[in-house]
């Protein structure tokens, strides 16, 4: 697909943990182990997985907040990993982040107006009159559901949901093409979470944004995404359309994730309680050979130890499992 806005090829993120003692081997944590995907204009791709699966490292590497150790990130036809600092700074106009903890990611010494206006100041300090900047900030505030009279307040005076609205306004004030959201609703209460998900979905449609939506909450991800990518230990297990992923999950890990969600309907929950996945996730420093999921997979066989399963098409989805067809037939 050449009309993709973002095309990620074999992206790797590693963290050097130093030597194991003075003479020990170098230890490397493989946070993202060769991830590839494409994102079309106006599309939302959900990225899910449990803690340590590499989803946040992937998001941060795409934003170039964490150095990638290999691969390509092609954004609007250019490889972001080859840009120097100033060229990358220019691209940030089109590539904006929204973070998990809105209060921690907003400067406590700046007013709401300053926070939202900061990107405009950084990019148009000489060309945009102060008055116009203020008008743009006010328009953005209104758009995300903040009141004009809140412009001189400080972030800590707001509740979590309101603070996340400020974070969204700051990310969108430059009218970016791509917004990378790292767990944007995980810290919010249920009643507020749905407000923010609706807001992001509306803004995406109005502004034609592409979204990467990283989260561990499958139901929220399913709600907002067109396609969903499931990560485990830094590898893609499955990449599929949202409905296909939830109605006919192909990978054993995807199935385990879905089966573990408690059903908010007591009768159904009593009949089918959330099913735990046995075992503990392996260390990303010494990942298992072959398929990284094999140590917890109920269907693992000899081949899974020997051969890394490639991501391949099975019934319209992309799946990294040697036995996907067989397991789906069951």
């Amino acid at each position, binding site marked *: 697909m050449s009309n993709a806005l973002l095309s990620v090829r074999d992206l790797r993120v590693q963290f050097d943990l130093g030597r194991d003692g003075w003479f020990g081997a170098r230890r490397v944590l493989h946070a993202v182990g060769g991830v590839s995907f494409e994102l079309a204009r106006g599309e939302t791709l959900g990225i899910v997985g449990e803690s340590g699966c590499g989803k946040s490292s992937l998001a941060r590497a795409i934003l170039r907040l964490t150095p990638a150790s290999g691969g390509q990130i092609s954004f609007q036809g250019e490889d972001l990993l080859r840009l120097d600092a100033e060229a990358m700074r220019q691209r940030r106009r089109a590539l904006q982040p929204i973070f998990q903890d809105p209060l921690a990611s907003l400067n406590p010494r700046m007013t709401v107006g300053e926070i939202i206006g900061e990107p405009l100041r950084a990019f148009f300090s000489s060309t945009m009159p102060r008055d116009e900047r203020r008008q743009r900030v006010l328009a953005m505030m209104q758009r995300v559901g903040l009141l004009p009279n809140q412009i001189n307040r400080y972030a800590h005076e707001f509740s979590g949901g309101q603070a996340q609205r400020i974070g969204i306004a700051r990310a969108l004030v430059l009218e970016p093409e791509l917004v990378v959201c790292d767990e944007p609703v995980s810290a919010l209460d249920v009643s507020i*979470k749905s407000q923010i998900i*609706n807001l992001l979905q509306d803004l995406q449609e109005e502004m034609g944004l592409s979204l990467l939506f990283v989260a561990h909450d499958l139901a929220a991800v399913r709600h907002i995404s067109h396609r969903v990518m499931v990560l485990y230990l830094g590898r893609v297990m499955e990449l599929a359309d949202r409905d296909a992923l939830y109605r006919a999950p192909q990978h054993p890990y995807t199935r385990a994730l879905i089966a573990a969600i408690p059903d908010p309907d007591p009768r159904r929950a009593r009949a089918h309680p959330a099913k735990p996945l046995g075992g503990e996730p392996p260390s990303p420093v010494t990942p298992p050979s072959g398929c990284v999921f094999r140590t917890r997979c109920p269907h693992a066989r000899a081949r899974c130890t020997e051969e890394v399963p490639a991501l391949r098409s099975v019934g319209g989805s992309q799946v990294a499992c040697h036995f996907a067809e067989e397991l789906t037939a069951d």
Partner: protein
Amino acid sequence: MTSEALIEVRSLDIEFTTPDGLVRAGTGLDLDIHAGEFVGIVGESGSGKSQLLLALLGLNAKNGRLRGSIRYRGTELVGAGKNELGRIRGDRISMIFQDPMTALNPHLRIGRQLTEGLQRHRKTTAAAARARAVEMLRAVHLTEPERRLDQYPHELSGGMRQRVMIAMALICEPELILADEPTTALDVTVQAQILELLQELRQRFGTAVVMVTHDLGVVAQIADRVAVMYGGRIVERGDVDDIFYRSRHPYTEGLRRAIPRLGEDRAARLATIPGNPPNLAQLPRGCPFAPRCAYHMPRCDAEMPTLETVAGTHRKACFYDGPLADAPEVLA
């Protein structure tokens, strides 16, 4: 469920004196907890749910003040001395916290922390305590229990640490376990492990559990009875089916509808509750939910509705008496 109440909370107020003024974390709370039952306390941040749990063991911060009554098997706990509370804490009633990493002491080996309660309350010998600790770690399905005793908390995964916390809570065979968001910090597959474990242990030991959570899915699966809190008040309580199928409070109903579900269409918008939760330092005079409520009436601003019987043990604190299900979806 037996009718024997372990805990009777009556007209309990929980207040904190702070630089921002008086924070009312709990107002007029009434709740019974019976032997062997599983009670879910649901609410959002700042609803006062955790403070209610802490109040049951007199663990609120120093600037806090309790008024009203909490009786444990007839013994009044409000105003009880340190010694009296100390005899109950960890022995008859124990607690599981949200984040096992901060609740466990990073400097002490698992074995030492596990057996502390036993040695304090039961004067057990070290060898007997260690044997009991191994038995408890086995009960929570931790592999290689003998080796775990000599490990430090950082050597275990989040799920394993929470199992240790549960083993610690169970070691004196308490009648009641208080659990404050015990699965919130865990991944969903590990959460399912812990829920299954709590269910199993409750059947095996007959322990009553009060679990505070914001996750209605967790409550639906595991609770017998549910209390819904908002702005420091219990606004509705009843059997789990009362709350999920016959809810009569607009807040409960809004909360239930706001959960994203796996089977939903992308085009459908999520139902929301407009506005923001109240500040416990500036609660309105009437119903704390009134400013966000779709069924708001003038009366709601003037006075707080009391908990009234709907049917059986189902109670709600709301003046509105009409149907909630037919109401238009509230969108924001």
